[in-house]
């Protein structure tokens, strides 16, 4: 089971070995399931490379057949400071 999922336009949005900014969803059970987090992360198509598994989905919701893995480096705040 994946801990997170992410929507992408193409697999090129998930370069291996590079830090990438993503909007990922937390799939943990409970009332906060599907809550988004904006993060800088490392990702890999190897589901064992990083600690957390990640389901990849395309722009219209279709799931990629294989799981990726993800390592979150830090959270990102996207709301401009004057509105926080």
């Amino acid at each position, binding site marked *: 089971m994946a801990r997170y999922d992410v929507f992408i336009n193409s697999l090129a949005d998930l370069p291996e070995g590079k830090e990438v900014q993503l909007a990922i969803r937390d799939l943990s059970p409970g009332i*906060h399931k599907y809550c*988004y987090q904006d993060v800088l992360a490392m990702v890999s198509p190897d589901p064992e490379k990083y600690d957390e598994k990640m389901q990849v989905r395309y722009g219209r*919701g279709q799931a990629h057949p294989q799981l990726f893995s993800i390592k979150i480096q830090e959270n990102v705040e996207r*709301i*401009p400071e004057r*509105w926080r």
Partner: protein
Amino acid sequence: MYKDNREFMKALEAAGELVTIDQEVDWDMEAGAIVRKVCEDKAPSPLMNKIKDYPGHRYLGAPLANYRKLAIAMGMDPDSSIPEIAAEYLERTNREPVKPVIVEKDQAPCKENIITGDDVDLFTLPAPMVHEGDGGRYLATWHFVVTKDPDKQEVNWGMYRQMVYNSKIMTGPLFPFSGGGQVFHGKYVPRGEAMPFATVIGPDPLGAIAGSAPTAIPEPEYTGQLLGKPVELVKCETVDLEVPANAEIIIEGYILPDVSIEEGPFGEYTGYRTSPRDTRTVYQVTAITHRNDPITTISNMGVPTDEGQLLRSFTLGLEMDRMLRNQGIPITGVYMLPESTHHLVVVGVKPLYTNIAAQIAQTVFGSSLGMWFHMVVVVDDKTDIYNFNEVLHALSTRCHPVNGIHVWQGVGTPLYPFLSAAERKKSVGPKVLFDCTFPLDWDPLSEVPRLVSFKTVYPQEIQDKVLANWEKYGFTK
């Protein structure tokens, strides 16, 4: 008429249009799947009394997804015909607008629970995961969003979907051609100001109809027209707006002018997930208020028929009817088919002059209603616009493939499934007219084909005799 959704539910139940589900239902797709099947089967609305993880909350699904429920919402006999419902709707909405009244907070059930500041967490509300593969949980699927023009102070209620992004943020498309979108993109964004909003979940049924209707009359007054009395509103807690006092859940906040965040994909009224995930409007939430044991309304968009398709078709068709009659065009009626996901409208007309079908198509496509549909079928005044068989027969036999089909480029919703990505980005919308009237210069006696039907080729006395003897022949009536 019903003061709130709860009274409406009792009327649905009395008419056999409500099923109460007491076993636990999962908000994560199970509730959505129930509502989807209800829409596809035209089944009674499900009231779900026990939602996993959310004690005290309830769901009402598919509240207005067939014409019987619409008739009940209008306070009419559930078995009223579509033309009867349409006539009643037009009669009420041709009356003077009825201004709303403001009630005190202690008279407003939607204030029974008030949550503000750091305590606000959208995940304390049971936003359903409506379809597998959706971009998130959609709290607002059958609702309306209240906004106000900062200069004219005109209020707009519009039905714009909203996805829960995190505990305090919702995202969703607010198109520039929508009522609220025009004010946001035209006034607030250029000024760099955040626009106050209030999302109303579980409004009374006529308020919801007004929120989805393409009317120039402010929706609170339009609802008053439909109700026959003023709507009761109450002031919001954290924004300068008013909301229906008897609604189930209110979400208040500000739409931010200078940031966009991902939203979607979502199963849409066209029956597809058409528009890919994209960055869209950001709603920052400042307060939640709700009734005790609140009922979240769920519309599940997909293949026909859901309430979005039914009511948009109904109200778009009737606004076109009003507009064409005001232009003096001798139409006999307008009917937009919900099964077309409000993309195809049938107009009946007395063909008094050549190119009257083109005049009709250009008028409706050129209006502010035109971006929501792209197919106009014009039939003569002898064709029953509500009879699908007659309309299909007219389309198949009277529309000349070269002379009767006219194509334009216009403005359209990016949700059309057939558009290319480039067309969708620019809101380009191709339009087509199917002129199903015979040319006027054909001699009616010697050139116009004779329609061969029971009603048209037999003398009246023969028809009367056959009808009078129908059961004697051995047929059932």
